[in-house]
């Protein structure tokens, strides 16, 4: 039997939220996601994170691809670039490389990232581009109304897999670990506080941060990756998990039946912009890590 919890009073909650200031990061546009979509938690998480980190609106660029995440930049009061399907990471790399002072956050889904975009992920990760990649895994193509995706589970029936999906799904966490990402974490839209906390950590990390967010598609997946199923399946990482231990991280990443939530792996190493400065010095030039914004 579900526990009865304290009633939450809307007005008080609203005041509380307004008090934090995180709503200022929201634009006037209303989101177009389906009610119950994990992107709402994500929005909450990102606004909280930006607020907690005290980042100026003008210094944040949110880059989205094509998918349900596309519209995210429009809902935020920051600079944004809604790019092409699968091409968020190159654009984000270009933005960060051209202006070190910007905080670049990339949002996209599993199709955008691992189907068409799969070829770009290894390079953003191995170069340690100092951006944050929030990857929403709902195991389906939502915007185009329900096709199978690279992370769909076996047996999943969709419009393009009417005889059940027979392709083994990718294991994104293992891939990102092997690509050399310097921060790899996993979160769940059904646990919004933890999600927010992990988003803060991901953005704060200096280097390429990959946060894999399990986020059910309430409209097109009623059987497989649902809140019901995931609520039972997810677990936190063991308390003694050492995020600097790659083997331990891989071991946790391999477990897709009971996904582990938290920071799987973390290391500090020079970012792409750092190496660019090193190259500039090696060439005898002066690093222009300052790029003055037009007054």
């Amino acid at each position, binding site marked *: 039997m579900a526990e009865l919890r304290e009633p939450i009073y809307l007005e008080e909650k609203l005041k509380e939220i307004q008090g934090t200031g995180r709503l200022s990061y929201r634009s006037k546009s209303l989101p177009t996601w389906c009610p119950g979509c994990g992107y709402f938690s994500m929005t909450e998480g990102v606004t909280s994170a930006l607020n907690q980190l005290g980042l100026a609106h*003008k210094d944040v660029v949110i880059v989205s691809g094509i998918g349900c995440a596309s519209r995210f930049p*429009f809902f935020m009061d*920051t600079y*944004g670039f809604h790019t*092409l399907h699968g091409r968020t990471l190159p654009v984000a790399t*270009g933005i960060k490389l051209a202006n070190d002072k910007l905080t670049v956050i990339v949002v996209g889904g599993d199709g955008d990232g691992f189907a068409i975009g799969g070829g770009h992920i290894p390079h953003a990760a191995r170069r340690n581009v100092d951006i944050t990649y929030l990857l929403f895994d709902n195991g389906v193509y939502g915007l185009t109304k329900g096709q199978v995706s690279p992370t769909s589970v076996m047996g999943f029936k969709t419009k393009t897999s009417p005889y059940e999906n027979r392709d083994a799904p990718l294991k994104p966490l293992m891939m990102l670990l092997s690509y050399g990402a310097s921060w790899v974490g996993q979160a769940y839209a059904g646990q919004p506080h933890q999600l927010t906390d992990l988003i803060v950590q991901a953005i704060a990390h200096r280097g390429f941060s990959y946060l894999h967010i399990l986020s059910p598609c309430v409209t097109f997946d009623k059987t497989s990756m649902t809140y019901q199923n995931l609520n039972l399946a997810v677990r936190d990482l063991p308390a003694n998990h050492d995020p600097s231990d790659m083997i331990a991280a891989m071991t946790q990443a391999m477990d897709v039946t009971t996904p582990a939530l938290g920071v799987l792996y973390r290391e500090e190493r020079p970012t792409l912009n750092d190496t660019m400065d090193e190259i500039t010095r090696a060439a005898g030039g002066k690093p222009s890590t300052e790029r003055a914004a037009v007054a």
Partner: protein
Amino acid sequence: MSDTDIQIAICGSAGDGTIAAGSILNQAMARAGYKVIAFDVYPAEIRGFGECIACSRITSAQVFSLKGQSDVLVSLNDGHAIAHVPEVRDYGAVIYDDAPISTLKEGQHISAHIKPAQLPYGLPMRELSERATSAAKSRNMVALGYLAGLYGMPRKAFHETITGKFKGKAAAIAEGNVQAFDAGYAEGEAAFRLDFIELGPAPETSSDAVMMNGNTAIVEGCMEAGLETFFGYPITPATTILEMLAARLPKQGGRVLQTEDEIAAIGAAIGAGYTGARAATATSGPGLALMTEMLGLGVMAEVPVVIFVSQRGGPSTGMPTKTEQSDLNLAVFGGSGDAKRIVLAPTNVEGCYRCAGRAFELAEQYQTPVIVLLDLYLSNRLESVSGLGKTRFAPNLSKGLDAWAPNEAYQRFAITDDWVSPRAIPGEPGGIHTVTGLEHNQLGRPKDTPEIHQLMTEKRHQKVAPAIRHADLSTYKRFGDEGEVDVGLIAWGSTFGEALEAMLQARSEGIRCAAMKVVMLSPLPVDAIRSFCADCREVLVPELNYQGQFANLLTGATGCEVHRFNRVTGRPMQVEDILGEIRRLAKVIKTERRFVAA
């Protein structure tokens, strides 16, 4: 009057130092004050003994192409050079090694193939090289020296060039090469000359001219324009742009990244352009094909970016080491939808420099992608260029946030009277906005109503229309006879060089002739082209593609009828071929006139 016009082809096998000899010849003569145009042919294979040709045309007056026939052929390897003997004109010279080390069957020595009207000059290249440097390796220097001595080329300029080339290596190496050169020079000087090739005095006593090819000129333009970020993916013939910038751009604090593919390259360049940085990429036809989706994004999001495209034989993988002009359609129209962008096509090496720099200005000014379209021939053609640094490019032509009224909510895509919106860049307060590939309203919010799409499409097209009237860049130019002419040529890219020479020759034969180069292909200077066509009885459009892509563009935009002259040989257009066509048209006109008069 002694007008110099000597074209020398040095032909050898990979490893013979053919290209190096050509390079020294070019630089020395440029240094001595002559005008030089050169083109090298490399073997297609990486290893092996493929054929190399270094071809140089040395003149006192400015010319615009290489001649169909050379005046001199220097053979460093008869096996390869024999096939090129027919390319030497009558009463031209063939220089070869007359003391090979192994027995040859009949016909294996080049002397068997020298035509009755050609003059043979043999010297013991290998022997002289071994005497000078105890190795046969400097045969190329011996041959070069012989050539120089034969025609009285300025020895000092060669010594300086050779020494400069080996600066940083052991002194003995430079000395050995100079000695080998001198040994050849002495032989050449003493040789009894039977050809009628004369080297006249240089137009200038000496010069700071440097030999540069199109790709290098592009890089110079980028450096001068303050390029900040460059992203590229290796592809022939654009790879050297990436390589040169990788070495040079960091010296002035810029950043170069070799991406995982062309899509990433253009994506990153657009990302960088979005932040207000000057950004570019370089590729060839196949890469541009991959980039077209991103191009559309750049157009739709009104982000400045520059793409250098060096065309090669197509379609598909095509002919990576051969030249062609068949990507015009792709450059001007490639990508989904009405994606209007600016396309520039320089016609010579200096033009590459100017178009490169201006491209950044145009991209910023009109907030749109700019493609600079050249071809393999122009990328690799060397020309003596001087005074590059005199052209300055504006550091920032962006209409910025300061043009926006401060108390109004910022609209990134506001409609203004010149259709260009004030542009905020990330990091600027008061300019927050999101750009998107979706159709959008003035705020930049996705919107697909009929009125919005009509309005925004018009904006994206109209804003670039004034580009044809650039104050500092010739988007088109007319040469030759003024007023009404019988035959008018319209050409673009490197083919314009051959067209110009053909026109000048036609005029000297009494044909009323003019030529127009079109440098801006999009937007197209329609009025100028129309009025040029009105002056011409017949219009001839030579280009290196089969479908007549430029002719189609012209006729589509102006309605003018043109004669097409299409070649897809993988080689540059020949002046003789264009001239033949001009003569043919002139004859037709003459006949018509006589008929009408009668």
